[in-house]
């Protein structure tokens, strides 16, 4: 009575594949020293999909601009699901910009914050910029720039409570 041939070749192929994966994984290990993280970046890349972030941008003394408070929103439910596709794209193009909803606040007459505009903001780890319609922020030093690339102030992360407090 014939018996089924053992699938040694398949098992061997599986083991070779496994060992290959391990070598591929081990080779270029990163140094454990952490470089300073760019503004609004997380450990694994961009700001986490469920995180809101606030940036208080204050003008330099020579600038005629008022301060602005930027609220970078978390991704929507479907936007979070879409990150699976984003993650797969990262396999082929490691750094891709992340676009989110943005609310810009400006100081109001009563000394609080009032919504100035709603827009889209692009977080980009390749150019190290946070780009929005009225300008951009350098993610290395928080430098706030206008559309003419003039540095007009500096931005820093703040807590969400700032949006309900008094403006500077």
């Amino acid at each position: 009575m014939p018996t089924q041939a053992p699938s040694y070749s398949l098992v061997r192929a599986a083991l070779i594949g496994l060992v290959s994966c391990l070598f591929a994984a081990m080779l270029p290990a990163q140094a454990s020293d952490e470089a300073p993280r760019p503004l609004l970046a997380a450990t694994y890349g961009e700001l986490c999909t469920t995180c809101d972030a606030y940036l208080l941008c204050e003008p330099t003394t020579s600038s005629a601009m008022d301060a602005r408070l930027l609220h970078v929103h978390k991704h929507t439910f479907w936007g979070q699901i879409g990150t699976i596709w984003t993650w797969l794209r990262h396999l082929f193009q490691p750094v891709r910009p992340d676009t989110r909803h943005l609310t810009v606040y400006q100081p109001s007459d009563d000394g609080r914050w009032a919504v100035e505009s709603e827009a889209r903001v692009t977080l980009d780890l390749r150019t190290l910029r946070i780009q929005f319609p009225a300008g951009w922020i350098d993610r290395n030093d928080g430098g706030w720039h206008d559309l003419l690339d003039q540095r007009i102030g500096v931005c820093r992360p703040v807590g969400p409570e700032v949006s309900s407090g008094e403006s500077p």
Partner: protein
Amino acid sequence: MNDIAASQASSVDPLRWASFRTHPMRSLGIVLVLFNRWVFGLFYIFAAINKFRGGYLFTDKLRATLQARVPELPPDSFAVTYIESFIIPLYVPISWLIAWGELAAGVGLLLGLCTRWAAAFALFFIVNFAIGGFYDASLIVLGAIAVLFIVTPSGRWMGLDRRLHARYPGSIWFR
């Protein structure tokens, strides 16, 4: 009854045109499940490689990651308790479990080897990521996909489980 259905389904060879002609919807479903399984397996393998390259095994990367995450979470949430009282004190064995476990799950899903167990392992990680403070809606989809590979005999449709189940029909590992 379920065994008969599983046996019938596993007898369909998705790469044969005859199967598509006689059972078009079933064959299409099988191909879709298999495609998802391969993508999901690659997803886990690359996630594991990121862990290895990121120094998960021999540095305190996991602890640093979680310590950075805690301030972003509601202080009274279960995730904070879970991270501070369980994961951070045991970050060394958990780092190893995550890196090697993701690799095992990925390889199992890609090759169709111990497929249901690999999918269960993947689901275990997804649940732990969610309760460990890294929940987002994409985990719902990833969890549903993992369940798909637990309930279907996809490793016997195409994978090493097909041969191994034939050789060891009583084994729970290759069902």
